[in-house]
């Protein structure tokens, strides 16, 4: 069905109070359920906005093109279907299993090579050769961030009246699209005291590593040495970004080798940002506990955000209460970003891996190693 430019396609998602996580962390914890979007992830916000905009500019013959390993492609397919326009998604070989899911949404799917970069190249080729084709970026575009930011502006009418802005909002970071939306949102609302916590997994933390390479976030003296194979470059306005040689995390949806320069810049300007890197097993563990408590399946990229929700010591290390502040009065929002890359089959697998995991809880917080205190 056609939609007018004034009506958006995304869903105003529920913000639910989590009794269990609040009790565990000793503060008021809310969950923003982006799992409820039509394409089951927050991506639908920015991507549907981008799609509507593209059609407004190029007309009804617009052909939406994207390169994606999953959730972004699905969001594009859903948007194309609802806006009644053509859509082609290029996926890497590794993401072949997502092909039928996309085709069910009437998208044309092309397996464009082994890695994401190959799929992206094929997508760019199509866009270059076809006048109606418009590339939908996966994460690096201010229009995407504007769409995603609506998840934050919705909070103003969903949090209880008379509560101050949240003390902290936590989200996962892949290439930085979601974070870009979060930062755009808190900026537009003027929530200067809100701490933004950006979580990634070990082996896929290009954002955390990039932030550490920038003086505004981390002094040179404290800066850790670059791991093997990781390179750093300077972008415009002095923003430094790293490139990871490969992704070594199972949280596939977080798998970006380099973050968006624009998002890193926004994060550096916001200042009140915490970078956290956790191990895959901790993310799996959080996902399993979330499933038990809230009866919802979330993919690894999403459960990464919830790792601090299941470890009070880690939460306290990331967000120590300010002196003179009653910690129980703090409001904290976790963005449950969603994603379709989870099934009962994976849950069974994660259960075994978590059970076999002998390493204790440890994380990287702003470049510093944190280890779970013994005896707690």
């Amino acid at each position, binding site marked *: 069905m056609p939609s007018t430019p004034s009506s958006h396609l995304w*869903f*105003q*998602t*529920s*913000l*639910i*109070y989590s*009794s*269990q996580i*609040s*009790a565990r962390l*000793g*503060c*008021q914890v809310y969950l923003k*359920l982006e*799992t*409820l979007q*039509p394409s*089951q992830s927050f991506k639908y916000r920015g991507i549907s906005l981008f799609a509507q905009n593209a059609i407004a500019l190029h007309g009804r013959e617009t052909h939406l093109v994207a390169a994606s390993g999953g959730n972004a492609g699905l969001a594009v397919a*859903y948007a194309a279907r609802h806006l009644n326009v053509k859509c082609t998604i290029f996926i890497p070989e590794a993401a072949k299993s997502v092909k039928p899911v996309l085709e*069910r*949404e009437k998208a044309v799917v092309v397996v464009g090579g082994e890695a994401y970069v190959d799929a992206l190249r094929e997508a760019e080729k199509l866009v270059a050769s076809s006048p109606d084709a418009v590339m939908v970026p996966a994460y690096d575009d201010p229009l995407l961030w504007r769409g995603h930011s609506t998840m934050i502006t*919705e909070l103003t*009418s*969903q949090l*209880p*009246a*008379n*509560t101050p802005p949240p003390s902290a909002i936590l989200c996962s970071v892949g290439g930085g699209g979601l974070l870009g939306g979060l930062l755009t949102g808190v900026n537009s609302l003027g929530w200067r005291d809100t701490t933004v916590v950006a979580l990634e997994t070990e082996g896929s933390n290009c954002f955390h590593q990039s932030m550490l390479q920038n003086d505004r976030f981390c002094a040179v003296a404290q800066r850790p040495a670059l791991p093997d194979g990781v390179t750093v470059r300077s972008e415009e306005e002095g923003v430094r970004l790293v490139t990871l040689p490969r992704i070594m995390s199972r949280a596939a949806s977080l798998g970006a080798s380099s973050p968006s320069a624009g998002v890193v810049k926004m994060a550096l300007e916001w200042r009140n940002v915490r970078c956290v890197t956790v191990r895959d097993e901790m993310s799996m563990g959080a996902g*399993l506990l979330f*499933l*038990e408590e809230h*009866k*919802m*399946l*979330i993919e690894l990229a999403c459960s990464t955000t919830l790792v601090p929700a299941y470890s009070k010591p880690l939460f306290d290390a990331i967000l120590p209460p300010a002196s003179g502040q009653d910690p*129980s009065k703090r409001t904290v929002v976790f963005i449950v970003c969603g994603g*379709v890359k*989870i*099934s*009962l089959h994976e*849950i*069974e697998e994660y259960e075994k891996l978590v059970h076999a995991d002998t390493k204790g809880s440890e994380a990287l917080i702003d470049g510093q190693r944190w280890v779970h205190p013994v005896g707690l």
Partner: protein
Amino acid sequence: MPIARRLSSRPSTRPSTPSQHLLQPEVDTEKPLWSKTPLLRSEKMSDRLGCDVYLKLENLQPPLSFKYRGISLFAQRALDGHGPNVHLISASSGNTGLALAYSCKRLGIKCTIFLPEGACRIVPLPEREGAKVVVGGKEYVDALGAARKALENEKHAVMIPSYDDPIIWEGHVSMVHEIKRQLPPGERPAAIFCAVGGGGLLGGIMQGCTEVGWPDVNIVGCETVGSNCFHRTMVANSSFASEKGKIPLIPASLANGVTLQKEGSVKIASLDKLDSRAASLGATAPSARVVSTILKRGRVCCMSVPDPLSMEACALFAEEHKMLVELACGTVLVPAYNPALYHTILAYHPTLENDPETRRPLVFIVCGGAKISVKEIEEYDTIAEKEARSHQFAFIDRIKTEW
């Protein structure tokens, strides 16, 4: 759609209740405690059934089920009527008790839940919400006996009814008002599918449809073959689903294993035993009040399905929508996963518009429930893989259908 707003400036006229030491969200005790839940359009179900299918996600209520509506309203009224020393009591093996615990915590009032031994698994949940839990006796009837005793001995004790109470219905009615506001403007459903245990939810939906001006909206009451006291009751009443001038038949499977009793002008069927794993549906007899009202209203369809189909629906819902719901809830979703069954229901209720041009939407009440874990869903998946295909049958009103 936003979670219920609160009035920020109106002063509360209720005496302030003592705050709990347990952490809880800021609560305005004069506004409804329940959440306005999403009405989610399921793309996959819509494609499968050929019309717009909406899911009312009551599994997103704080205690994970729709029961929070009626129960929290009852608790608020009890507080209004008896004051802050009121003590709410329940004998419930599950979601009723949990909904009560959540309500009492937020209202700052005392709560005791009596459970039979077999229900132990759900115990930690109400206790975390500050309820006192007393476990004793093997069956529900023992827990009920203990609850009644407590009721007699205490001045301010009030028993929570499980489903057969107008205040409980009144809370559930709110669901229909929300659905009306949430559907695209002017649209009304062809049918609302809901699970039926004792009939509390059904009663609320029916009254809700009356209040919002939807007398022609069909209600499909869904049960399992081993726990379908409502279905059996309806077919035992000759005015239900009968053709003029013909004596209505009751298939043997629906007639056997029940005891019929007359209550007022209606016959009520009591099941000799419950034989379904959908424990939350486990009522041996439905509410007479609901039955007589619905017989007068009409536009109701009774559907009973075998457990393997409910199990399959739970497993498929987990894969498609990434949410775990109890078996009782999966039961409602069986038509959404079996288009042939849905089309048979359509055929027997042609008022569910079949014309693609005017096809009205369907609403499924995803009632939720806390008694479900991923282990159980995995078990259901395994059983369904083996047994669902050989159990492709259902009872619709007075007929048995297979596909």
